[in-house]
């Protein structure tokens, strides 16, 4: 508890500086509303239900897109490492699309699937898949030949070793890839909702901004930041648990 307090004390200082700068008139309250106003607006959004409804829509999209990207991306990466033809076929495509800024796909998925959940899920799925694929591929490719052979000599079929040896060997890199994907999913979620949506936290930010309700807008921005932070923390915890054998 005490350690956490010390650790996050810079955050507290920043909050104090924010409040002071706006109250003392160093910064226009139009550009940056005082933190206390933002917090009050945040309470209002929570009480009015806006934050819950839009938050739920956003989390559903991010969760579904991310889950798809993990399942498909992970399977693809392992398959590329295990069967050469798959790698020959898909390797160049992965390399080509990996560095592409995925936000460029926002209009594309909106064109295909409209302004609803589908276009966001597809966008997040496509955008988050490649880091997962590469993580799974690199992890699976580096799996130790002797481990595979050991499993085979203890009666495991070739396919069985894929699950028993290759996938666990790939896990550390795969989990790192998923962490990248997790951060990316927030970026893609908010930017796509800002541009092409009628619900969601990103949409709410845009909507409040256009209406000039800046304290509430800042409240939603802070919410998104908090959600991203918590998600990453929880994920790191989980990762440490899963990889406790590494020590």
């Amino acid at each position, binding site marked *: 508890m005490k350690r956490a307090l010390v650790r996050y004390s810079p955050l507290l200082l920043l909050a104090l500086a924010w409040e002071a700068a706006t109250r003392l008139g160093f910064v226009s309250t139009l550009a940056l509303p005082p933190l206390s106003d933002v917090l009050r607006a945040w309470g209002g959004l929570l009480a009015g239900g806006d934050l819950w409804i839009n938050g739920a829509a956003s989390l559903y999209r991010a969760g579904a897109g991310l889950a798809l990207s993990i399942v498909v991306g992970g399977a693809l990466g392992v398959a590329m490492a295990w069967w050469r033809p798959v790698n020959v076929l898909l390797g160049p495509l992965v390399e080509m699309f990996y560095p592409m800024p995925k936000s460029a796909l926002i209009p594309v998925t909106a064109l295909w699937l409209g302004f609803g959940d589908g276009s966001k899920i597809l966008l997040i799925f496509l955008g988050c898949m490649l880091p997962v694929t590469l993580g799974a591929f690199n992890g699976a490719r580096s799996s130790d030949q002797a481990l595979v052979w050991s499993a085979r*000599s203890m009666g495991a079929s070739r396919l069985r070793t894929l699950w028993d040896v290759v996938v666990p060997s790939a896990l550390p890199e795969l989990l790192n890839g998923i962490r990248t994907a997790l951060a990316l999913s927030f970026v893609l979620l908010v930017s796509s909702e800002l541009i092409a949506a009628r619900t969601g936290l990103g949409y709410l930010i845009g909507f409040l901004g256009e209406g000039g309700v800046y304290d509430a807008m800042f409240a939603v921005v802070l919410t998104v930041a908090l959600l991203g932070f918590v998600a990453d923390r929880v994920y790191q915890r989980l990762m440490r648990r899963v990889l406790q054998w590494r020590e």
Partner: protein
Amino acid sequence: MTGNSQIVIDRVSHVYRPPRGREVRALEDVSLEVRGREFVALLGPSGCGKSTLLYLIGGFLPTGTGTIRVDGEPVTRPGSDRGIVFQHFALFPWKTVRANVLYGLEKLGLSRAEREERARSFIDLVGLNGFEDSYPSQLSGGMKQRTAIARTLAIDPQILLMDEPFGALDAQTRSLMQTELLGIWQRSPKTVLFVTHDVQEAVYLAERVVVMSARPGRVKAIVDTNFDRNAPNLFKSKPFVEKVDEIWALVRDEALKAQRSEGH
């Protein structure tokens, strides 16, 4: 001796063809027969293909030229009749000692209680009780290799393939493990093929030592090395020392050849 040979290697050659770079002739025209329950060491300079021969018998690599038969059947794939122990242990790092030993047992169709009992007895056998729930990363090299040996012995293979199993251990641990391996082999005899480049280890452990030539590996000589291994001061006894010297001379020629061909 064809009648009671368990492993028959008949004019086997093997060429590695890496995706890039030159092909490597690892083995050339190797023939060897090993009796059931015999302890044979494969000795030779590094890169002479002795590990390759072991992997071929294990069924991990496809046999190109020649045939390998185990109990009369050609080897086409790995099987639990041939257990293997690697130099770098090849334990599943995400499994505990117990789970590593249980892995092979799960494929034998035993009941859960039987599996647990068998795992426990083999962990006992290699002296690792108290470490059942440790992960490999928490163990010393010697303990890792004990776990690997327990894991392989637990599924009771008729043939034990050992690929420089003590090569990664310090001298003291190695000597202890050698004695333990002999004890295990004397209690429950198995056919052992033991790859090493340590002459003294080969002479001490094996009943026959197969000396292989520098790359491409051929059988250069087969030397009988049957000593009373429980004799005190065996290592200092004259016949033992002479045998080591005799084999050393054979190996040294080949090591020099290997060095020259690598352009040192």
